[in-house]
C-alpha cells in the first residue's frame, strides 16, 4: 500500500511541496496535467466519488471516508497560506475557494439574432410619415379611413413590440448598437465578448474570492497601507505583508496586461474615494451580472448609442440608379462650367490671341455636351420616377387584373353556357364575379371627382421643378464667369457686392421682372434641403424630383452618414414599394409584391429595381375548369403543403423551430427568390420589418393562415439547404 501523501489540513503547516506545472495533488499521487478544478464540487461529484473510491481502496479503510481528498490545484499556480508565504494553502480550508475555472470548456458560440424591435419602431415611424404625406392628397372619408388604418396599424405594432420583447428576454440577440443580450444573465455585452469561454470570468470577482479585494473595494490590509499619492500620477505606495503581494502575484501571473492595469487602476481609484458595492458593480467592465438596485430590480448595462454622423461607405452597386447617374452628370456639368468660366475670362485678355479663343471654343463645346448629358440623365430620372408613381401603379394593376378577370370569366361562362354544370365551375364563376366587384369598388376610390383617372399626378410639379433647376444652372454659368472675373480683379468685388445688396436698382434686374415686383433674390432650394423638408424623403408621386436629386447626390458622394443612409433607405423603399391593394397582388399572382431590401442589402435593392422594370405576364386561365385560377405562368412544380403549427406566427415559428431569423435580409431574400414558385405577399417586408400576409403555393392556392405560411417557409429553407 502506498503511503498517502500527507494532506495539508490546517493553515500554517509547512513543508508542503510547491507544485510544478502539470502536477496535481491527488490521493493516488498521480501526476496529471491540464485538469482544472470544477467550479462547484457538486458538479463533479462523480469525479469526487471516484477520488473517494480510490482513496478508500488505497486506504483499505473507511475511517477517512468523510475527509475530502485534496482537489487538484490549477496548473501553473502555487498556493500560499495567509501567513507563511512559503506554505501551501489548504484548499480544503473552511472557506474553500469557489472561484475555480469552469469545466465547461469552450463556450458554444451563441446563436445571435438581430433585434427586430428596432425594425418595428422604424416601421411605425414610416407609417406616420406615410400618413403625413397622405394628408396632402387625401380628404374626407379617404383621409379618415387612412387615419383609422394608421391607428390600427400602430396599435398592432405596439402589441407586436410587447410580444417581441417578452420573447427576446429569453433569447440571445443583438440590439441596434451591436451589443449582445445574454439570455441567461439578461445583460448586454459587446459582440466580441459574447462568445468568450466562461474561463474568462469576472476578474475582480476572482480577486474578491481570493481575498485580495474586499466586498467594499479594498480589503483592510490595503486600506491600512496604501498611500495613494497623486491621483493623476497614479503612484501607489504599499507597505503590506509579503504574503498578500505574493498572493497577488499568483493571481496576476496569468492575467493579461489589460487586467493587471485595470486592477491597479481600481486600487488607485478605490484608494481615493469610497466606492459602494453597487457603484463598483456598475462601473466594472468585467461584471456581466445584472445590477441590482435598491428596489431589487435588475438593470442592464448602458451601451453606446449609434453615432448618426458616423460615415458608411455606399455600395458601388447603387451607381446604376437613375438618381446616382443624375448626380454624377450634374457634377460633371458643374466642373465643365468652371472650365468654361476660366476660358471665357482668359479669352477677354488683350493678348489672349488665337489659343485663347480656341480654348474658349473647346470649353463651350464641352459645356454644351455636358448639358446634353444632363438632358438625357434628367429624362432617365423622370421616367424612372414616373414608373414608381404609386397611385399610377395601383390603377395599372387593378386595370390589368380586371382585364384578366373578365377574360377568364368570359371563358368560364362560355363553358357553363355550353352545358358544363359542374359545381366547381359554378364556384369559380362566383368567385371571379365577387373579385371583379371588389376590384371595381377599389378602382372607384382612385377616381377623381370628375370621374377621370389622373394617373400622372403632379406631373406639372415635376415640370416646374425642372424649370427651377434650369434657371439655377443658367445662373451657375454666369456666376462662375463673374466669380472668375472678380478673382482676377479684386476691384470688381466691391461693385459686385454693392449690386447684390441693392437689388432694387434697375441695374441688376430686367425691366419686365422689375414690373412684376421681383427683386432678384434667389431662393433656390439646395437638394439636400428638399430631403429634410419632406421628412424622410418619401416618394409621394411626382413631387419628389428634388428629393431624388438629393438622394442621388448622397449616393454619388460614395460615403454617407448614418442619418443620410436612413433617408436614402427610406427613399428607395418608398419608391419601390407597391401601394396598391394587397388583394391585387394576391389574386393576379404574377404582379408579385415588390420587396425591396434595405440599403444594407444592396442585392435586394437591385433585384427590386429589376423586378420593378420587368414586364409583367398575366397568366391565362386554362379551359379546364378544375385547374386552379391562380396558376402562375411559370412551370413550377405543384406542391402540397400541409399547414404547420397555426398557433405560431411565422417569425416565431422560424425562430423556435427552424432556428432561423426570417428578418435577416439574407434569409428574406432566400424566401423571396425561392425556386419552388412560392410567392409571399406582405407589408413592408424590406429589411424584415414587415409582416407576411399571405402565401401563394403553386398547385394549392393562396393562403393567409400562419400554418400554411409556416409550411411554405419550412419547405423553402429546407429545400434551399438541400
Amino acid at each position: 500500500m502506498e503511503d498517502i501523501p500527507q494532506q495539508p489540513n490546517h493553515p500554517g503547516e509547512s513543508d508542503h511541496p510547491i507544485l510544478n506545472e502539470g502536477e496535481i495533488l491527488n490521493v493516488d499521487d498521480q501526476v496529471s496535467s491540464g485538469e482544472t478544478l470544477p467550479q462547484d464540487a457538486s458538479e463533479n461529484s462523480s469525479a469526487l466519488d471516484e477520488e473517494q473510491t480510490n482513496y478508500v481502496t488505497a486506504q483499505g479503510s473507511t475511517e477517512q471516508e468523510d475527509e475530502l481528498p485534496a482537489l487538484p490545484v490549477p496548473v501553473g499556480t502555487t498556493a500560499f497560506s495567509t501567513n507563511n508565504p512559503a506554505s501551501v494553502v489548504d484548499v480544503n480550508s473552511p472557506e474553500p475557494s469557489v472561484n475555480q475555472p469552469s469545466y465547461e470548456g469552450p463556450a458554444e458560440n451563441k446563436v445571435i439574432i438581430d433585434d427586430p424591435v428596432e425594425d418595428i419602431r422604424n416601421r411605425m415611424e414610416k407609417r406616420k410619415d406615410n400618413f403625413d404625406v397622405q394628408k396632402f392628397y387625401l380628404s374626407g372619408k379617404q383621409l379618415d379611413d387612412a387615419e383609422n388604418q394608421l391607428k390600427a396599424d400602430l396599435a398592432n405594432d405596439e402589441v407586436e413590440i410587447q410580444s417581441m420583447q417578452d420573447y427576446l428576454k429569453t433569447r440571445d440577440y443583438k440590439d441596434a448598437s451591436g451589443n449582445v443580450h445574454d439570455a441567461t444573465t439578461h445583460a448586454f455585452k459587446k459582440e466580441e465578448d459574447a462568445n468568450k469561454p466562461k474561463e474568462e470570468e469576472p476578474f475582480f470577482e476572482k480577486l474578491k474570492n481570493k481575498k485580495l479585494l474586499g466586498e467594499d473595494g479594498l480589503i483592510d490590509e490595503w486600506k491600512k497601507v496604501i498611500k495613494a499619492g497623486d491621483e493623476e500620477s497614479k503612484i501607489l505606495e504599499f507597505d503590506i505583508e509579503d504574503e498578500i503581494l505574493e498572493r497577488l502575484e499568483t493571481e496576476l501571473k496569468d492575467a493579461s496586461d489589460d487586467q493587471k492595469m485595470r486592477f491597479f487602476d481600481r486600487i488607485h481609484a478605490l484608494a481615493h474615494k469610497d466606492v459602494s458595492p453597487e457603484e463598483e458593480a456598475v462601473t466594472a467592465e468585467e461584471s456581466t451580472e445584472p445590477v441590482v438596485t435598491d428596489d431589487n430590480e435588475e438593470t442592464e448595462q448602458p451601451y453606446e448609442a449609434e453615432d448618426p454622423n458616423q460615415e458608411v461607405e455606399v455600395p458601388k452597386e447603387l451607381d446604376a440608379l437613375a438618381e446616382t447617374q443624375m448626380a454624377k452628370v450634374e457634377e460633371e456639368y458643374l466642373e465643365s462650367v468652371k472650365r468654361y468660366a476660366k476660358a471665357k475670362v482668359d479669352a477677354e485678355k488683350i493678348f489672349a490671341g488665337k489659343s485663347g479663343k480656341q480654348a474658349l471654343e473647346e470649353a463651350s463645346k464641352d459645356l454644351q455636351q455636358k448639358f446634353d448629358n444632363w438632358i438625357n440623365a434628367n429624362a432617365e430620372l423622370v421616367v424612372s420616377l414616373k414608373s414608381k408613381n404609386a397611385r399610377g401603379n395601383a390603377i395599372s394593376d387593378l386595370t390589368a387584373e380586371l382585364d384578366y378577370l373578365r377574360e377568364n370569366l368570359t371563358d368560364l361562362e362560355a363553358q357553363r353556357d355550353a352545358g358544363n354544370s359542374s359545381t366547381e365551375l359554378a364556384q369559380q364563376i362566383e368567385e371571379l364575379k365577387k373579385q371583379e366587384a371588389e376590384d371595381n369598388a377599389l378602382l372607384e376610390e382612385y377616381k377623381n371627382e370628375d370621374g377621370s383617372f389622373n394617373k400622372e399626378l403632379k406631373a406639372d410639379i415635376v415640370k416646374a421643378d425642372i424649370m427651377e433647376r434650369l434657371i439655377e444652372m443658367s445662373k451657375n454659368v454666369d456666376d462662375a464667369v463673374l466669380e472668375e472675373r472678380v478673382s482676377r480683379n479684386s476691384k470688381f468685388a466691391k461693385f459686385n457686392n454693392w449690386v447684390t445688396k441693392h437689388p432694387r436698382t434697375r441695374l441688376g434686374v430686367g425691366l419686365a421682372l422689375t414690373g412684376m415686383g421681383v427683386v432678384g433674390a434667389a431662393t433656390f432650394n439646395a437638394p439636400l434641403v428638399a430631403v429634410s423638408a419632406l421628412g424622410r424623403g418619401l416618394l409621394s408621386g411626382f413631387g419628389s424630383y428634388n428629393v431624388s436629386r438629393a438622394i442621388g447626390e448622397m449616393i454619388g458622394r460614395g460615403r454617407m452618414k448614418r442619418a443620410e443612409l436612413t433617408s436614402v433607405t427610406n427613399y428607395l423603399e418608398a419608391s419601390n414599394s407597391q401601394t396598391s391593394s394587397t388583394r391585387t397582388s394576391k389574386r393576379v399572382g404574377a404582379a408579385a409584391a415588390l420587396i425591396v431590401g434595405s440599403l444594407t442589402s444592396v442585392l435586394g435593392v437591385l433585384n427590386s429595381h429589376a423586378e420593378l422594370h420587368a414586364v409583367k405576364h398575366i397568366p391565362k386561365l386554362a379551359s379546364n375548369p378544375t385547374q386552379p385560377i391562380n396558376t402562375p405562368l411559370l412551370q413550377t412544380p405543384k406542391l402540397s403543403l400541409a399547414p404547420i403549427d397555426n398557433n405560431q406566427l411565422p417569425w416565431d415559428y422560424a425562430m423556435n423551430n427552424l432556428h432561423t431569423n426570417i428578418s435577416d435580409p439574407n434569409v428574406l431574400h432566400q424566401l423571396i427568390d425561392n425556386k419552388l414558385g412560392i410567392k409571399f405577399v406582405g407589408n413592408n417586408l424590406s429589411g424584415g420589418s414587415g409582416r407576411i400576409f399571405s402565401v401563394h403555393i403553386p398547385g394549392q392556392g393562396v393562403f393567409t393562415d400562419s400554418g400554411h405560411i409556416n409550411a411554405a417557409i419550412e419547405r423553402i429553407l429546407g429545400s434551399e439547404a438541400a
Partner: protein
Amino acid sequence: MAKLTRDELVKKLEIESLDFASQQAMLENLAAAVSSRLMNKITEKLSDEDIDQLNELIDKDDQDGVEWYIKSKFEHYDEMAEATEEEVINELVENSRRANEAIERLQNSSNSAQAQN
C-alpha cells in the same frame, strides 16, 4: 419682345400649376439669373478706371450716381437690359422644351418596349 405681363411669363415658363407664392419664388430665382447675366455684361465692358470711379461712388453711398455711371457706359442700357432678360427667358424656355421632349421620347420608347413584350 413686347413687354410680358406676369401671367404671360408664368405661362411661358409653364408654371401655371404652382400657387402664387411658389410662382413668385420662381420669378425671384429668374430675376437673380438675369441679374447675373447683366452683371457679366456690365463688368465685361468696364475698365479698371471705370471700376475705380464706381468704387468711389459706392463709398459715398451714391446709388443714383452708380446707376447713372453704369448706364452711361452703354449706348442704350435699358434696351440692353430688356434684351438680356429676353435672352435668358428664351434660353430657359428652349432648354425646358428640350428636357420635356427627351422625357417624352424616353417614355414612349419605354411604353413601346413593354407593349411588345
